[in-house]
Protein backbone atom coordinates (compact mmCIF):
# COMPACT_ATOMS: atom_id res chain seq x y z
CA UNK A 1 0.00 0.00 0.00
CA UNK A 2 2.69 2.41 1.00
CA UNK A 3 4.73 1.48 -2.03
CA UNK A 4 1.78 2.32 -4.19
CA UNK A 5 1.47 5.69 -2.54
CA UNK A 6 5.16 6.31 -3.03
CA UNK A 7 4.83 5.61 -6.70
CA UNK A 8 1.77 7.68 -7.21
CA UNK A 9 2.51 10.61 -4.94
CA UNK A 10 4.88 12.27 -7.30
CA UNK A 11 3.14 15.49 -8.08
CA UNK A 12 3.99 18.76 -6.43
CA UNK A 13 0.49 20.21 -6.58
CA UNK A 14 -2.28 20.24 -9.04
CA UNK A 15 -5.29 21.82 -10.41
CA UNK A 16 -8.06 19.45 -11.20
CA UNK A 17 -10.79 20.21 -13.61
CA UNK A 18 -13.59 18.11 -14.93
CA UNK A 19 -16.45 18.77 -17.20
CA UNK A 20 -19.22 16.52 -16.09
CA UNK A 21 -21.01 16.87 -19.32
CA UNK A 22 -20.67 18.75 -22.50
CA UNK A 23 -23.39 20.53 -24.36
CA UNK A 24 -24.29 23.87 -25.72
CA UNK A 25 -22.73 25.70 -22.81
CA UNK A 26 -19.09 24.85 -22.41
CA UNK A 27 -18.71 26.26 -18.92
CA UNK A 28 -21.91 24.82 -17.55
CA UNK A 29 -21.83 21.75 -15.36
CA UNK A 30 -18.21 21.80 -14.50
CA UNK A 31 -16.38 21.02 -11.33
CA UNK A 32 -12.90 21.96 -10.28
CA UNK A 33 -10.75 20.66 -7.50
CA UNK A 34 -7.56 21.68 -5.82
CA UNK A 35 -5.13 20.12 -3.39
CA UNK A 36 -1.96 21.48 -1.96
CA UNK A 37 0.37 20.99 0.94
CA UNK A 38 2.50 23.72 2.43
CA UNK A 39 4.70 24.43 5.40
CA UNK A 40 3.38 26.97 7.86
CA UNK A 41 6.52 28.41 9.43
CA UNK A 42 4.51 30.35 12.03
CA UNK A 43 2.90 27.21 13.42
CA UNK A 44 5.74 24.88 12.38
CA UNK A 45 3.18 22.59 10.81
CA UNK A 46 2.67 20.94 7.48
CA UNK A 47 -0.77 21.77 6.20
CA UNK A 48 -2.73 19.94 3.50
CA UNK A 49 -5.89 21.46 2.14
CA UNK A 50 -8.25 20.55 -0.67
CA UNK A 51 -11.47 21.79 -2.17
CA UNK A 52 -14.11 20.70 -4.68
CA UNK A 53 -15.83 23.51 -6.54
CA UNK A 54 -18.88 22.71 -8.69
CA UNK A 55 -20.66 25.37 -10.65
CA UNK A 56 -24.26 26.30 -9.85
CA UNK A 57 -25.84 23.95 -12.35
CA UNK A 58 -23.86 21.00 -11.10
CA UNK A 59 -24.75 22.01 -7.60
CA UNK A 60 -28.41 21.75 -8.51
CA UNK A 61 -28.08 18.01 -8.85
CA UNK A 62 -24.97 17.06 -6.96
CA UNK A 63 -23.39 17.73 -3.58
CA UNK A 64 -19.60 18.17 -3.74
CA UNK A 65 -17.36 16.09 -1.54
CA UNK A 66 -13.67 16.11 -0.76
CA UNK A 67 -11.47 13.98 1.47
CA UNK A 68 -7.87 14.67 2.28
CA UNK A 69 -5.22 12.63 4.02
CA UNK A 70 -1.67 13.51 4.97
CA UNK A 71 1.17 11.01 4.99
CA UNK A 72 4.38 11.41 6.94
CA UNK A 73 6.68 9.43 4.70
CA UNK A 74 5.28 5.91 4.55
CA UNK A 75 2.88 6.33 7.43
CA UNK A 76 -0.33 8.25 7.60
CA UNK A 77 0.30 11.14 9.94
CA UNK A 78 -2.81 11.23 12.06
CA UNK A 79 -5.17 8.44 11.17
CA UNK A 80 -8.04 8.62 8.75
CA UNK A 81 -10.57 10.39 10.88
CA UNK A 82 -8.80 13.62 11.68
CA UNK A 83 -9.65 15.52 8.57
CA UNK A 84 -11.51 18.75 9.12
CA UNK A 85 -14.16 19.16 6.43
CA UNK A 86 -16.20 22.30 6.01
CA UNK A 87 -19.20 22.66 3.73
CA UNK A 88 -19.37 26.25 2.56
CA UNK A 89 -22.63 25.76 0.68
CA UNK A 90 -21.38 26.10 -2.85
CA UNK A 91 -18.13 24.23 -2.33
CA UNK A 92 -16.46 21.97 0.20
CA UNK A 93 -13.08 22.27 1.83
CA UNK A 94 -11.00 19.79 3.81
CA UNK A 95 -7.77 20.24 5.70
CA UNK A 96 -5.30 18.34 7.80
CA UNK A 97 -2.20 19.53 9.58
CA UNK A 98 0.67 17.85 11.34
CA UNK A 99 3.86 19.01 13.09
CA UNK A 100 6.70 19.51 10.65
CA UNK A 101 9.83 17.44 10.92
CA UNK A 102 12.98 18.42 9.08
CA UNK A 103 14.03 16.07 6.34
CA UNK A 104 10.70 14.25 6.15
CA UNK A 105 8.64 14.11 2.97
CA UNK A 106 4.93 14.67 3.37
CA UNK A 107 2.36 13.42 0.88
CA UNK A 108 -1.14 14.78 0.66
CA UNK A 109 -3.84 12.84 -1.05
CA UNK A 110 -7.35 14.01 -1.83
CA UNK A 111 -10.38 12.52 -3.48
CA UNK A 112 -12.91 14.77 -5.15
CA UNK A 113 -16.40 13.52 -5.78
CA UNK A 114 -19.99 14.52 -6.28
CA UNK A 115 -22.92 12.95 -4.55
CA UNK A 116 -25.86 12.53 -6.83
CA UNK A 117 -29.05 13.93 -5.41
CA UNK A 118 -31.40 13.46 -8.33
CA UNK A 119 -32.48 10.01 -9.17
CA UNK A 120 -35.18 8.31 -11.12
CA UNK A 121 -35.94 4.65 -11.28
CA UNK A 122 -36.47 2.98 -14.61
CA UNK A 123 -38.50 -0.18 -13.93
CA UNK A 124 -37.98 -1.45 -17.45
CA UNK A 125 -34.29 -1.98 -16.99
CA UNK A 126 -34.31 -1.94 -13.22
CA UNK A 127 -31.81 0.91 -13.07
CA UNK A 128 -31.59 4.48 -11.91
CA UNK A 129 -30.62 7.35 -14.13
CA UNK A 130 -29.52 10.75 -13.22
CA UNK A 131 -30.14 13.82 -15.27
CA UNK A 132 -26.87 13.52 -17.08
CA UNK A 133 -27.29 9.94 -18.08
CA UNK A 134 -25.28 8.15 -15.45
CA UNK A 135 -27.00 5.00 -14.47
CA UNK A 136 -26.50 2.49 -11.74
CA UNK A 137 -28.29 -0.53 -10.47
CA UNK A 138 -30.01 -0.52 -7.15
CA UNK A 139 -28.50 -2.80 -4.63
CA UNK A 140 -30.59 -5.89 -3.94
CA UNK A 141 -33.39 -5.88 -1.40
CA UNK A 142 -32.47 -6.34 2.21
CA UNK A 143 -29.90 -7.14 3.37
CA UNK A 144 -28.00 -4.55 1.45
CA UNK A 145 -24.28 -4.14 1.61
CA UNK A 146 -23.13 -0.71 2.61
CA UNK A 147 -20.81 0.31 -0.15
CA UNK A 148 -20.28 3.93 0.77
CA UNK A 149 -20.15 5.77 4.03
CA UNK A 150 -23.33 7.57 3.12
CA UNK A 151 -26.51 7.09 5.14
CA UNK A 152 -28.97 4.89 3.24
CA UNK A 153 -32.37 6.18 2.20
CA UNK A 154 -35.43 4.12 1.56
CA UNK A 155 -38.08 4.67 -1.04
CA UNK A 156 -40.97 2.77 -2.47
CA UNK A 157 -40.92 2.75 -6.20
CA UNK A 158 -43.51 1.34 -8.59
CA UNK A 159 -44.07 -1.47 -9.11
CA UNK A 160 -43.86 -1.54 -5.31
CA UNK A 161 -40.43 -3.08 -5.19
CA UNK A 162 -38.80 -2.37 -1.87
CA UNK A 163 -35.25 -1.25 -2.34
CA UNK A 164 -32.62 0.35 -0.28
CA UNK A 165 -30.84 2.94 -2.29
CA UNK A 166 -27.49 4.42 -1.56
CA UNK A 167 -26.49 7.76 -2.83
CA UNK A 168 -24.37 7.40 -5.88
CA UNK A 169 -20.95 8.90 -5.60
CA UNK A 170 -19.39 10.06 -8.81
CA UNK A 171 -15.68 9.88 -8.35
CA UNK A 172 -14.08 12.81 -10.08
CA UNK A 173 -10.67 11.48 -9.34
CA UNK A 174 -7.89 12.06 -6.92
CA UNK A 175 -5.15 14.57 -6.50
CA UNK A 176 -1.76 14.37 -4.92
CA UNK A 177 0.73 16.84 -3.56
CA UNK A 178 4.13 16.39 -2.00
CA UNK A 179 6.32 18.48 0.23
CA UNK A 180 9.79 17.69 1.53
CA UNK A 181 10.87 19.57 4.60
CA UNK A 182 14.45 20.77 4.21
CA UNK A 183 17.21 20.43 6.77
CA UNK A 184 19.81 22.94 7.76
CA UNK A 185 22.60 23.11 10.31
CA UNK A 186 25.26 25.63 11.20
CA UNK A 187 28.90 24.73 11.01
CA UNK A 188 31.49 26.54 13.06
CA UNK A 189 34.89 25.49 11.90
CA UNK A 190 36.85 27.16 14.63
CA UNK A 191 38.81 29.57 12.50
CA UNK A 192 41.40 31.78 14.17
CA UNK A 193 39.92 33.86 16.90
CA UNK A 194 37.02 31.49 17.50
CA UNK A 195 36.77 29.05 20.31
CA UNK A 196 34.31 26.21 19.78
CA UNK A 197 32.68 24.18 22.43
CA UNK A 198 30.15 21.50 21.98
CA UNK A 199 28.24 19.94 20.54
CA UNK A 200 26.19 21.96 20.29
CA UNK A 201 28.78 24.40 19.22
CA UNK A 202 28.81 27.89 20.59
CA UNK A 203 29.96 30.64 18.37
CA UNK A 204 32.45 32.86 20.07
CA UNK A 205 34.09 35.90 18.72
CA UNK A 206 36.48 38.41 20.14
CA UNK A 207 35.77 42.03 20.37
CA UNK A 208 37.52 45.14 21.46
CA UNK A 209 36.16 48.65 21.31
CA UNK A 210 38.76 49.43 18.68
CA UNK A 211 38.83 46.28 16.62
CA UNK A 212 36.03 43.86 15.76
CA UNK A 213 37.27 40.46 14.79
CA UNK A 214 34.92 39.01 12.19
CA UNK A 215 34.52 35.27 11.91
CA UNK A 216 32.71 33.17 9.35
CA UNK A 217 29.96 30.67 10.06
CA UNK A 218 28.50 28.38 7.43
CA UNK A 219 25.17 26.65 6.88
CA UNK A 220 24.81 23.17 5.45
CA UNK A 221 21.36 22.55 3.95
CA UNK A 222 19.47 19.96 1.94
CA UNK A 223 17.93 19.67 -0.55
CA UNK A 224 19.86 22.19 -2.58
CA UNK A 225 18.36 25.11 -4.42
CA UNK A 226 16.93 27.04 -1.50
CA UNK A 227 17.74 30.45 -0.14
CA UNK A 228 19.47 31.36 3.10
CA UNK A 229 18.64 34.14 5.45
CA UNK A 230 20.83 34.88 8.47
CA UNK A 231 19.70 36.81 11.48
CA UNK A 232 21.88 37.83 14.37
CA UNK A 233 21.13 38.63 17.96
CA UNK A 234 22.24 41.75 19.73
CA UNK A 235 25.95 42.49 20.07
CA UNK A 236 26.58 40.90 16.66
CA UNK A 237 26.74 42.41 13.23
CA UNK A 238 26.95 40.80 9.81
CA UNK A 239 29.99 42.07 8.06
CA UNK A 240 29.04 40.33 4.82
CA UNK A 241 25.67 39.74 3.12
CA UNK A 242 23.08 37.70 5.00
CA UNK A 243 21.67 35.69 2.11
CA UNK A 244 24.54 33.38 1.32
CA UNK A 245 25.36 29.98 2.75
CA UNK A 246 28.00 31.65 4.93
CA UNK A 247 28.11 34.89 6.82
CA UNK A 248 30.91 36.87 8.36
CA UNK A 249 29.98 37.87 11.88
CA UNK A 250 31.64 40.34 14.18
CA UNK A 251 31.00 41.27 17.76
CA UNK A 252 30.20 44.90 18.35
CA UNK A 253 29.62 44.74 22.08
CA UNK A 254 30.88 42.38 24.71
CA UNK A 255 28.53 39.79 26.16
CA UNK A 256 27.35 40.34 29.70
CA UNK A 257 26.86 36.60 30.14
CA UNK A 258 28.03 33.55 28.22
CA UNK A 259 25.81 32.73 25.23
CA UNK A 260 23.69 35.84 25.65
CA UNK A 261 23.20 36.23 21.93
CA UNK A 262 22.70 34.00 18.92
CA UNK A 263 23.14 33.35 15.24
CA UNK A 264 20.23 31.91 13.28
CA UNK A 265 19.86 30.77 9.70
CA UNK A 266 16.61 29.99 7.89
CA UNK A 267 16.71 27.90 4.75
CA UNK A 268 13.69 28.19 2.46
CA UNK A 269 12.86 26.17 -0.61
CA UNK A 270 10.95 27.51 -3.57
CA UNK A 271 7.71 25.95 -2.35
CA UNK A 272 7.91 27.89 0.90
CA UNK A 273 8.96 25.02 3.13
CA UNK A 274 11.78 26.02 5.41
CA UNK A 275 14.05 24.94 8.21
CA UNK A 276 15.98 26.91 10.76
CA UNK A 277 19.03 26.36 12.88
CA UNK A 278 20.61 28.54 15.47
CA UNK A 279 23.65 28.53 17.71
CA UNK A 280 24.25 30.46 20.88
CA UNK A 281 26.95 33.07 20.65
CA UNK A 282 29.22 34.87 23.04
CA UNK A 283 31.14 38.02 22.32
CA UNK A 284 34.25 37.83 24.44
CA UNK A 285 36.80 40.49 25.00
CA UNK A 286 40.14 40.49 26.73
CA UNK A 287 39.48 41.87 30.18
CA UNK A 288 42.79 41.10 31.89
CA UNK A 289 46.30 40.05 30.97
CA UNK A 290 48.18 37.75 33.28
CA UNK A 291 51.95 37.39 33.24
CA UNK A 292 52.47 33.63 33.31
CA UNK A 293 56.04 34.15 34.48
CA UNK A 294 57.61 37.23 35.93
CA UNK A 295 60.87 36.81 34.01
CA UNK A 296 64.05 36.25 36.03
CA UNK A 297 67.17 34.23 35.41
CA UNK A 298 65.30 31.06 34.41
CA UNK A 299 63.60 32.86 31.51
CA UNK A 300 66.68 34.73 30.33
CA UNK A 301 69.11 34.04 27.54
CA UNK A 302 72.51 35.73 27.80
CA UNK A 303 74.14 37.18 24.72
CA UNK A 304 77.87 36.96 24.04
CA UNK A 305 79.93 38.24 21.16
CA UNK A 306 81.99 35.88 19.00
CA UNK A 307 84.98 36.77 21.16
CA UNK A 308 83.14 35.74 24.29
CA UNK A 309 82.38 39.23 25.47
CA UNK A 310 79.11 39.52 27.44
CA UNK A 311 76.81 41.78 25.45
CA UNK A 312 73.44 41.69 27.16
CA UNK A 313 70.34 39.44 27.45
CA UNK A 314 66.80 38.54 26.40
CA UNK A 315 64.23 37.84 29.10
CA UNK A 316 60.91 36.34 27.91
CA UNK A 317 57.59 36.89 29.65
CA UNK A 318 54.40 35.20 28.45
CA UNK A 319 50.94 36.66 28.94
CA UNK A 320 47.50 35.05 28.89
CA UNK A 321 44.45 37.10 28.05
CA UNK A 322 41.39 36.26 30.09
CA UNK A 323 37.86 37.33 29.22
CA UNK A 324 35.17 39.28 31.02
CA UNK A 325 33.75 36.17 32.71
CA UNK A 326 36.64 35.43 35.04
CA UNK A 327 40.36 34.98 35.51
CA UNK A 328 40.11 31.29 34.62
CA UNK A 329 38.56 31.96 31.19
CA UNK A 330 41.71 32.18 29.15
CA UNK A 331 41.21 33.31 25.60
CA UNK A 332 42.63 30.71 23.30
CA UNK A 333 43.02 32.34 19.96
CA UNK A 334 45.41 32.49 17.10
CA UNK A 335 46.22 35.80 15.49
CA UNK A 336 45.07 38.77 17.53
CA UNK A 337 47.60 41.55 17.60
CA UNK A 338 49.71 41.74 20.79
CA UNK A 339 51.75 44.89 21.04
CA UNK A 340 53.75 47.04 23.44
CA UNK A 341 55.03 50.56 23.83
CA UNK A 342 57.80 51.33 26.35
CA UNK A 343 59.35 54.35 27.95
CA UNK A 344 62.51 54.29 30.02
CA UNK A 345 62.15 55.74 33.51
CA UNK A 346 65.73 55.19 34.65
CA UNK A 347 68.93 53.69 33.28
CA UNK A 348 72.32 53.50 35.02
CA UNK A 349 74.46 53.24 31.87
CA UNK A 350 73.79 53.86 28.19
CA UNK A 351 72.49 50.67 26.54
CA UNK A 352 70.22 49.68 23.63
CA UNK A 353 66.65 48.63 24.41
CA UNK A 354 64.38 46.81 21.94
CA UNK A 355 61.99 48.33 21.24
CA UNK A 356 63.29 51.80 21.82
CA UNK A 357 61.17 54.29 23.73
CA UNK A 358 57.87 55.27 22.12
CA UNK A 359 58.07 52.78 19.27
CA UNK A 360 55.21 50.29 19.08
CA UNK A 361 56.30 46.71 18.58
CA UNK A 362 53.68 44.17 17.47
CA UNK A 363 53.58 40.42 17.57
CA UNK A 364 50.72 37.91 17.43
CA UNK A 365 48.84 36.30 20.25
CA UNK A 366 49.05 32.62 19.31
CA UNK A 367 47.53 29.31 20.30
CA UNK A 368 49.15 27.42 23.18
CA UNK A 369 51.42 30.33 23.94
CA UNK A 370 49.47 33.51 24.36
CA UNK A 371 51.27 36.81 24.10
CA UNK A 372 55.04 36.76 24.18
CA UNK A 373 57.04 39.75 25.34
CA UNK A 374 60.81 39.78 25.05
CA UNK A 375 62.67 42.21 27.27
CA UNK A 376 65.77 42.94 25.23
CA UNK A 377 68.77 44.96 26.32
CA UNK A 378 72.25 45.01 24.85
CA UNK A 379 75.39 47.07 25.28
CA UNK A 380 76.13 50.01 23.06
CA UNK A 381 78.03 49.06 19.91
CA UNK A 382 81.45 47.51 20.65
CA UNK A 383 81.18 47.82 24.41
CA UNK A 384 80.78 45.02 26.95
CA UNK A 385 77.52 45.09 28.83
CA UNK A 386 77.87 47.31 31.93
CA UNK A 387 78.30 45.60 35.25
CA UNK A 388 76.61 46.52 37.50
CA UNK A 389 73.60 47.59 35.51
CA UNK A 390 70.14 48.86 36.55
CA UNK A 391 67.22 50.23 34.56
CA UNK A 392 63.48 50.63 34.84
CA UNK A 393 60.96 50.91 31.98
CA UNK A 394 57.23 51.50 31.86
CA UNK A 395 55.37 49.26 29.46
CA UNK A 396 51.87 49.56 27.99
CA UNK A 397 50.54 46.31 26.49
CA UNK A 398 47.89 46.20 23.80
CA UNK A 399 45.58 43.32 22.88
CA UNK A 400 43.97 44.13 19.56
CA UNK A 401 44.55 47.79 20.25
CA UNK A 402 42.90 47.59 23.66
CA UNK A 403 45.40 49.01 26.14
CA UNK A 404 45.99 47.68 29.64
CA UNK A 405 47.22 49.14 32.88
CA UNK A 406 50.99 49.92 32.90
CA UNK A 407 53.50 47.25 33.61
CA UNK A 408 56.91 48.01 35.06
CA UNK A 409 60.04 46.22 33.91
CA UNK A 410 63.15 46.05 36.11
CA UNK A 411 66.44 45.42 34.36
CA UNK A 412 69.53 44.04 36.14
CA UNK A 413 72.97 43.00 34.96
CA UNK A 414 72.02 39.45 33.83
CA UNK A 415 68.23 39.37 33.79
CA UNK A 416 65.03 41.39 33.87
CA UNK A 417 61.67 40.88 35.54
CA UNK A 418 58.24 42.41 35.59
CA UNK A 419 56.52 43.72 38.69
CA UNK A 420 52.79 43.11 38.13
CA UNK A 421 51.12 39.76 37.47
CA UNK A 422 47.62 40.98 36.52
CA UNK A 423 47.02 43.83 34.13
CA UNK A 424 43.50 45.02 33.45
CA UNK A 425 41.65 47.20 31.02
CA UNK A 426 40.61 50.64 32.02
Amino acid at each position, binding site marked *: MTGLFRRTF*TAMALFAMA*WLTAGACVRAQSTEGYLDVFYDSELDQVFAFAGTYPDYETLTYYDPKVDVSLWCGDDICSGWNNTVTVDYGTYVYAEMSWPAKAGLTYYAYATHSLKLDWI*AFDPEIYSY*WDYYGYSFNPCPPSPCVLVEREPPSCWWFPPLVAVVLYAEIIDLGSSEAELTMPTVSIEIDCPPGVVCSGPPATFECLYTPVTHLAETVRAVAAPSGGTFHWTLGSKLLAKSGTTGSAVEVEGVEGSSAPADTWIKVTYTLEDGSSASASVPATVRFAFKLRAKSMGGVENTTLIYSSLGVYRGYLTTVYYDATDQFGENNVIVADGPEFAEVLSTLYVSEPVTFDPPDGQKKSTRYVLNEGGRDVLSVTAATGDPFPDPFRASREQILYFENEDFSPQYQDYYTTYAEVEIEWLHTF
Partner: protein
Amino acid sequence: MFIKLLLVLPLGVVLAVPRAVAAGPPEAADLARAKAMALQICATLQVRAEQMEQEGRPSGLLRRAFAIKAGLNDAETQVLLEVASRMRARTAPLDNRAQAIIRSFRQKHGGGRLPAGVLPPPPPPELTALQRQRDAILEEAVRELDFQLGSVGLEKLHRQISRARTSTTGQNAAVRTPAEIRPLASRMLSSSRREEVAR
Protein backbone atom coordinates in the same frame (compact mmCIF):
# COMPACT_ATOMS: atom_id res chain seq x y z
CA MET B 1 -38.29 5.40 -25.45
CA PHE B 2 -37.47 8.67 -27.17
CA ILE B 3 -36.85 10.27 -23.83
CA LYS B 4 -34.53 7.46 -22.85
CA LEU B 5 -32.54 7.94 -26.04
CA LEU B 6 -32.16 11.58 -25.18
CA LEU B 7 -30.57 10.53 -21.93
CA VAL B 8 -27.89 8.64 -23.79
CA LEU B 9 -27.19 11.37 -26.31
CA PRO B 10 -25.19 13.74 -24.10
CA LEU B 11 -22.76 10.97 -23.31
CA GLY B 12 -22.03 10.53 -26.97
CA VAL B 13 -21.14 14.19 -27.15
CA VAL B 14 -18.81 13.85 -24.23
CA LEU B 15 -17.08 10.92 -25.82
CA ALA B 16 -16.43 12.98 -28.87
CA VAL B 17 -14.92 15.77 -26.85
CA PRO B 18 -12.45 14.29 -24.41
CA ARG B 19 -11.42 16.89 -21.89
CA ALA B 20 -8.66 15.30 -19.94
CA VAL B 21 -6.21 17.80 -18.50
CA ALA B 22 -3.30 18.00 -20.87
CA ALA B 23 0.36 18.12 -20.00
CA GLY B 24 2.57 21.06 -20.89
CA PRO B 25 2.06 24.80 -20.63
CA PRO B 26 -1.58 25.74 -20.38
CA GLU B 27 -3.17 27.72 -23.18
CA ALA B 28 -4.36 31.24 -22.51
CA ALA B 29 -7.96 30.27 -21.79
CA ASP B 30 -6.93 27.46 -19.49
CA LEU B 31 -4.42 29.73 -17.82
CA ALA B 32 -7.09 32.33 -17.15
CA ARG B 33 -9.34 29.65 -15.75
CA ALA B 34 -6.53 28.30 -13.59
CA LYS B 35 -5.87 31.78 -12.26
CA ALA B 36 -9.55 32.14 -11.46
CA MET B 37 -9.24 28.87 -9.58
CA ALA B 38 -6.20 30.21 -7.74
CA LEU B 39 -8.21 33.24 -6.67
CA GLN B 40 -11.02 31.00 -5.46
CA ILE B 41 -8.49 28.96 -3.46
CA CYS B 42 -7.14 32.14 -1.90
CA ALA B 43 -10.67 33.26 -1.08
CA THR B 44 -11.43 29.89 0.50
CA LEU B 45 -8.29 30.09 2.62
CA GLN B 46 -9.27 33.58 3.73
CA VAL B 47 -12.69 32.32 4.79
CA ARG B 48 -11.15 29.37 6.58
CA ALA B 49 -8.55 31.51 8.35
CA GLU B 50 -11.26 33.89 9.56
CA GLN B 51 -13.29 30.94 10.78
CA MET B 52 -10.32 29.51 12.69
CA GLU B 53 -9.61 32.86 14.31
CA GLN B 54 -13.24 33.19 15.37
CA GLU B 55 -12.88 29.76 16.97
CA GLY B 56 -9.83 31.02 18.84
CA ARG B 57 -7.41 28.91 16.84
CA PRO B 58 -4.27 30.33 15.26
CA SER B 59 -4.57 30.50 11.50
CA GLY B 60 -0.84 30.85 10.96
CA LEU B 61 0.04 31.53 7.35
CA LEU B 62 -3.03 29.81 5.92
CA ARG B 63 -4.19 32.93 4.08
CA ARG B 64 -0.86 33.12 2.30
CA ALA B 65 -0.51 29.40 1.56
CA PHE B 66 -1.01 29.66 -2.18
CA ALA B 67 1.25 32.68 -2.42
CA ILE B 68 3.93 30.87 -0.44
CA LYS B 69 3.77 27.90 -2.80
CA ALA B 70 4.01 30.23 -5.78
CA GLY B 71 6.99 32.01 -4.23
CA LEU B 72 5.37 35.45 -4.31
CA ASN B 73 7.04 38.22 -2.35
CA ASP B 74 5.19 40.30 0.23
CA ALA B 75 3.98 42.93 -2.22
CA GLU B 76 2.84 40.34 -4.76
CA THR B 77 1.12 38.36 -2.03
CA GLN B 78 -0.69 41.47 -0.93
CA VAL B 79 -1.97 42.03 -4.46
CA LEU B 80 -3.12 38.42 -4.80
CA LEU B 81 -4.92 38.47 -1.48
CA GLU B 82 -6.58 41.82 -2.13
CA VAL B 83 -7.83 40.77 -5.56
CA ALA B 84 -9.11 37.50 -4.08
CA SER B 85 -10.78 39.37 -1.27
CA ARG B 86 -12.54 41.77 -3.63
CA MET B 87 -13.61 38.87 -5.83
CA ARG B 88 -14.94 37.06 -2.79
CA ALA B 89 -16.96 40.09 -1.72
CA ARG B 90 -18.60 40.16 -5.13
CA THR B 91 -19.23 36.44 -5.52
CA ALA B 92 -20.48 35.74 -2.00
CA PRO B 93 -23.92 37.33 -2.59
CA LEU B 94 -24.24 35.34 -5.82
CA ASP B 95 -23.32 32.14 -4.01
CA ASN B 96 -25.90 32.85 -1.33
CA ARG B 97 -28.53 33.57 -3.96
CA ALA B 98 -27.64 30.40 -5.88
CA GLN B 99 -27.87 28.32 -2.73
CA ALA B 100 -31.33 29.68 -1.99
CA ILE B 101 -32.49 28.96 -5.53
CA ILE B 102 -31.11 25.44 -5.47
CA ARG B 103 -32.63 24.75 -2.07
CA SER B 104 -36.01 25.96 -3.24
CA PHE B 105 -35.69 24.06 -6.50
CA ARG B 106 -34.90 20.80 -4.76
CA GLN B 107 -37.76 21.22 -2.31
CA LYS B 108 -40.10 21.89 -5.19
CA HIS B 109 -39.08 18.65 -6.84
CA GLY B 110 -39.35 16.26 -3.95
CA GLY B 111 -35.83 16.75 -2.74
CA GLY B 112 -34.60 15.12 -5.92
CA ARG B 113 -36.57 11.90 -5.42
CA LEU B 114 -38.45 11.41 -8.64
CA PRO B 115 -41.23 9.03 -9.49
CA ALA B 116 -40.56 6.31 -12.00
CA GLY B 117 -40.11 7.54 -15.49
CA VAL B 118 -39.91 11.17 -14.51
CA LEU B 119 -36.74 12.94 -15.46
CA PRO B 120 -35.11 15.58 -13.30
CA PRO B 121 -36.14 19.00 -14.52
CA PRO B 122 -33.63 21.25 -16.20
CA PRO B 123 -31.80 23.65 -13.91
CA PRO B 124 -33.57 26.91 -13.07
CA PRO B 125 -32.76 29.47 -15.76
CA GLU B 126 -31.84 32.11 -13.20
CA LEU B 127 -28.97 29.86 -12.07
CA THR B 128 -27.51 29.99 -15.53
CA ALA B 129 -27.71 33.75 -15.42
CA LEU B 130 -26.10 33.81 -11.97
CA GLN B 131 -23.33 31.53 -13.17
CA ARG B 132 -22.63 33.89 -16.06
CA GLN B 133 -22.40 36.77 -13.61
CA ARG B 134 -20.06 34.78 -11.43
CA ASP B 135 -17.90 33.80 -14.39
CA ALA B 136 -17.74 37.45 -15.42
CA ILE B 137 -16.62 38.48 -11.92
CA LEU B 138 -13.91 35.85 -11.98
CA GLU B 139 -12.75 36.97 -15.40
CA GLU B 140 -12.59 40.56 -14.19
CA ALA B 141 -10.63 39.48 -11.14
CA VAL B 142 -8.16 37.62 -13.33
CA ARG B 143 -7.71 40.71 -15.50
CA GLU B 144 -7.21 42.79 -12.37
CA LEU B 145 -4.63 40.30 -11.17
CA ASP B 146 -2.86 40.36 -14.54
CA PHE B 147 -2.79 44.14 -14.38
CA GLN B 148 -1.68 44.56 -10.78
CA LEU B 149 0.58 41.63 -10.05
CA GLY B 150 3.38 42.68 -12.36
CA SER B 151 5.27 40.56 -14.83
CA VAL B 152 7.53 38.90 -12.26
CA GLY B 153 4.63 37.97 -9.99
CA LEU B 154 2.59 36.69 -12.90
CA GLU B 155 5.48 34.59 -14.06
CA LYS B 156 5.70 32.99 -10.63
CA LEU B 157 1.97 32.37 -10.62
CA HIS B 158 2.04 30.88 -14.11
CA ARG B 159 5.00 28.71 -13.15
CA GLN B 160 3.10 27.37 -10.17
CA ILE B 161 0.04 26.73 -12.31
CA SER B 162 2.07 25.08 -15.06
CA ARG B 163 3.91 22.93 -12.56
CA ALA B 164 0.61 21.89 -11.08
CA ARG B 165 -1.03 21.11 -14.37
CA THR B 166 1.94 19.28 -15.77
CA SER B 167 1.74 16.87 -12.93
CA THR B 168 -1.80 15.81 -13.73
CA THR B 169 -1.06 13.61 -16.69
CA GLY B 170 -1.85 10.06 -17.62
CA GLN B 171 -3.21 7.71 -15.03
CA ASN B 172 -2.74 10.25 -12.31
CA ALA B 173 -5.10 12.76 -13.86
CA ALA B 174 -6.69 14.40 -10.91
CA VAL B 175 -10.23 14.52 -12.11
CA ARG B 176 -11.58 12.36 -14.81
CA THR B 177 -13.99 13.26 -17.54
CA PRO B 178 -17.27 11.38 -17.87
CA ALA B 179 -15.60 9.11 -20.39
CA GLU B 180 -13.10 8.14 -17.74
CA ILE B 181 -15.59 8.00 -14.92
CA ARG B 182 -17.75 5.46 -16.64
CA PRO B 183 -15.85 3.39 -19.17
CA LEU B 184 -17.34 3.02 -22.58
CA ALA B 185 -17.75 -0.72 -22.16
CA SER B 186 -20.04 -0.40 -19.19
CA ARG B 187 -22.11 2.20 -20.94
CA MET B 188 -22.40 0.03 -24.02
CA LEU B 189 -23.50 -2.74 -21.74
CA SER B 190 -26.19 -0.52 -20.28
CA SER B 191 -27.25 0.50 -23.73
CA SER B 192 -27.45 -3.11 -24.92
CA ARG B 193 -29.37 -4.00 -21.85
CA ARG B 194 -31.76 -1.17 -22.50
CA GLU B 195 -32.33 -2.32 -26.06
CA GLU B 196 -32.73 -5.87 -24.90
CA VAL B 197 -35.35 -4.89 -22.34
CA ALA B 198 -37.08 -2.67 -24.88
CA ARG B 199 -37.41 -5.59 -27.26
